[in-house]
């Protein structure tokens, strides 16, 4: 048995070595993170082909869980969702740091992501794109909205939208003077924070026009003027700002919520070489700038912001002064089981009248 295993591994290894020149990279990522021009350059340079599937955090984990980590060669979940998903489902394999050109990464982000995505001593994630969630506000119609809880103000009644997901719970908790991240490891303390937020959000419900689900949905609502203040991603706000100067992203007083989307290797991915090639390729400063220009978010690449277009930089600086950057609340890794508590709270808010 052992012998046959060894020999089959040897056969597989020999086969993969032969195919090493040209592999198909099946990339599971977010919309905008793999623009066609970048793919064309990559395919021309390395000979690999790239198949892109766009998704979101929850669907990425669900897809990989369904196949025990197969079907994709590289995925890009947020850094706080890696360690718990690995603990629960074992869907990733560790990053081989010897194959990564660490000089391409901003050292502080590389280190932070590595420590957040470590499970049983192995590192599972490399940083790629980062950004924040906060408020996207039509400043002409709702200039008074500067913090999450302002969304519950009577002046914007019926013209507010946010998602019914965990960032909303956390943003509101900070705005109410609580510290949910500090309570992550204490289920009872976290539950009492959730209870306070639940009361707040249930009371806030009449103010809400609808809970949004997809990025396009909230952009439509804001563009049409049906919604004047919302909790959303910074890029959405900056994209709308290009069409309508009144609408922009506002870093909330309680702090924007910072996320880092990463590179992880699915456990049963087949094209590891292509995956490491892709990581090296997209972390080059000029390629990183191309991705920032399409995705709207900055990357963890050294000098990646040099080639970013001036409009986007101006919008970023307009939303974030140094104090706002220092005030960003970065998501720590989510302990396993926490999401069940949040889920129950979200269900109750959804059902409340």
């Amino acid at each position, binding site marked *: 048995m052992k012998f046959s295993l060894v020999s089959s591994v040897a056969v597989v290894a020999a086969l993969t070595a032969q195919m090493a020149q040209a592999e198909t990279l099946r990339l599971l990522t977010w919309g905008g993170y793999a623009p066609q021009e970048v793919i064309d350059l990559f395919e021309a340079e390395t000979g690999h082909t790239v198949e892109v599937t766009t998704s979101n955090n929850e669907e990425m984990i669900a897809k990989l869980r369904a196949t025990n980590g197969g079907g994709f060669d590289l995925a890009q979940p947020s850094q706080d969702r890696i360690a718990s998903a690995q603990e629960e489902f074992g869907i990733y394999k560790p990053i081989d740091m010897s194959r990564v050109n660490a000089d391409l990464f901003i050292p502080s982000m590389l280190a932070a992501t590595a420590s957040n995505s470590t499970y049983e001593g192995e590192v599972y994630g490399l940083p790629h794109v980062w950004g924040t969630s906060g408020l996207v506000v039509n400043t002409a119609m709702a200039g008074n909205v500067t913090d999450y809880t302002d969304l519950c103000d009577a002046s914007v009644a019926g013209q507010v939208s946010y998602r019914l997901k965990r960032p909303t719970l956390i943003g509101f908790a900070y705005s109410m003077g609580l510290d949910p991240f500090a309570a992550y490891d204490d289920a009872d303390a976290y539950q009492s924070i959730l209870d306070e937020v639940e009361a707040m959000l249930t009371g806030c419900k009449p103010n809400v*026009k609808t809970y949004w689900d997809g990025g396009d949905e909230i952009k439509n609502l804001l563009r049409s003027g049906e919604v004047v203040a919302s909790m959303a991603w910074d890029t959405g706000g900056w994209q709308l700002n290009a069409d309508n100067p009144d609408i922009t992203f506002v870093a909330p007083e309680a702090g924007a919520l910072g996320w880092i989307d990463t590179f992880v290797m699915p456990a049963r991915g087949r094209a590891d070489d292509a995956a490491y090639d892709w990581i090296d390729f997209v972390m080059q400063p000029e390629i990183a700038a191309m991705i920032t220009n399409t995705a709207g978010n900055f990357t963890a690449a050294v000098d990646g912001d040099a080639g970013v277009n001036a409009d986007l930089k101006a919008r970023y600086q307009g939303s974030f002064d140094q104090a706002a950057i220092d005030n960003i609340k970065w998501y720590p890794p989510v302990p396993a089981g926490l999401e069940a508590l949040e889920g129950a709270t979200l*269900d109750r808010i959804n059902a409340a009248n």
Partner: protein
Amino acid sequence: MTSDTSRLGFYLLLAPILLWLVVLIILPHVGLFIVSISEKIGPREYETGFANYAAFFNEPLYWRTFARTAIMSILATALTLILGFPIAYYIAKLTRGRTKTTLFLMCMIPFWVSELVRTFGWMILLRETGVISNALQYLGLVNGPVEMLYNDAAIMVGLVYTSILFMVVPLVTTLDSLDDSLIEAGYDLGGTSTSIMREIVIPHAMPGIVSGCIVVFMLSLGNYLTPILLGGKDSLWFTGMIYTQFITRFNWELGSAFGFLLLALSSLVVFAGLKLSRQSLTETMGRA
């Protein structure tokens, strides 16, 4: 010898449907059931039990959503029948030849585009800055924009629109098979329009009505897109809950249990509907 070959032929013909049933329906359900009876006690640790089903009955939110979904689906089925019957009657009995084909085709045309596109169409019509709201303002009937989206009425409109074809088609088929001379005889014997409808047309169309209702009810109960896109902040739908459990909560165990409960509910309602209308499933499916 002959019986052997015919038996072989029988099994060969049976094979595709057996394969379909076993591979695509029975096996996934067995898998789903096994997942639904495993309780999670820790990371990567599970034990067998019925805790997921217990969670459904202990949490009012779940069974209320469940009941709400069932009631709204039954309502949508009734509305579809009320709207679909006159259409089907008109197509089957009052038109001939080319007009009939054209009308039938017109019922089908909206179904040439995907459900998602149709639902977005309704969103464009109903939203605050949408077509209907603007038209009403233009005509001076209302002063400000009206929001017609994000409520239960919008869901109802969407469900009826999505499923009306599946009511009209079986109704047209059964009404077509009703001999016109029977209706004429009814008038000759002094029947009124109402009594002929009640005594002749509806009893004859009953299998079509029942099979149309079964299909529409199933489609509404299992619909995901329409309630999620058109529904508002309070509009929970059971399929949406199953999606949430599977995808955003990573709780496949509870999601599977919900899936089984939905299966049980739809079977139960169809069974009750057949009993109430005194139809048998074989007759309904055979004639419609």
